């Protein structure tokens, strides 16, 4: 059987981006991830955007959120859990 080219699709990269940013990808998978980034400007942009989101989200504390926003977020999570059958 012919071995396939080491590559990811853009969709696969999106699924792996959090693990990549948290340094949780095994080295072979990280290599495929970075090989894809080398030639895909769209995924590079996406990675940079995700990095900025993580940095920004890390600066938010519970006290920094307006009470109305906090209630709306909690309601959204409650509805989401109810809709998915309350699973973990």
């Amino acid at each position, binding site marked *: 059987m*012919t*071995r*396939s*080219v*080491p590559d990811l699709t853009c969709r696969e990269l999106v699924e792996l981006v959090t693990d990549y940013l948290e340094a949780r990808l*095994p080295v072979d998978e990280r290599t495929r991830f970075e*090989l894809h*980034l*080398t*030639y895909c400007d769209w995924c590079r942009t996406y990675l940079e955007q995700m990095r900025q989101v993580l940095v920004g989200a890390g600066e938010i504390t519970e006290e920094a959120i307006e009470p109305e926003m906090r209630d709306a977020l909690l309601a959204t999570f409650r509805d989401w859990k109810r809709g998915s059958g309350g699973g973990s």
Partner: protein
Amino acid sequence: MIAFKFLGAGARAPFTRFQWPSPGDWVSAPADDTEMWIYACRRRDLPYWLDDELWRIELEEPVREARYQIASPRGRLLSRVAAWDRGLMRDYAQACALRARELALPHVPDTVREALADAPDLEAIAAAAARAGPTSRTAEYVADAANNALHVGPATTSYIAAMLASSLGGGLAAFEAERAWQARWIADRLALEPDPRAGS
């Protein structure tokens, strides 16, 4: 061991955004965590990792060799390969697109073969290949390679050429053979020294 490393503009690592210090200053990674080591290229790895700046890097032993890169717990930039510049990147992208046409010619429909062979420049290659329409994946690769050489850059163009080679039969072996051709092109144009271990 002396190896190579591609970095973004200003000697910044393209994925981790790590800012490399001045040439000569050592950078160390945790020796017991090989996944955090410093990654670099042998000559044959160069086409896989193209970026704005190419540097010579000294890696301290032990150096771990993988299929497309090498890694070490400690390294320092030595000097930038100044000849890897916008002009050479453009030439390399064009060479890859022309090579894609060469590989594709025996496999494209008869209706476009002559026009494709006679096309004098990348614009004409893209136009001739596009005339095959969506029925020829091979011609689409050629058009993509020419358009990327004109408007995008060398990393995407060289990847498309290697994927074309793979698609014509041979899979990974053909893909890697095309990458080897590309590595020789870069090494010849930059007059890079052979890899100390592999001689490639």
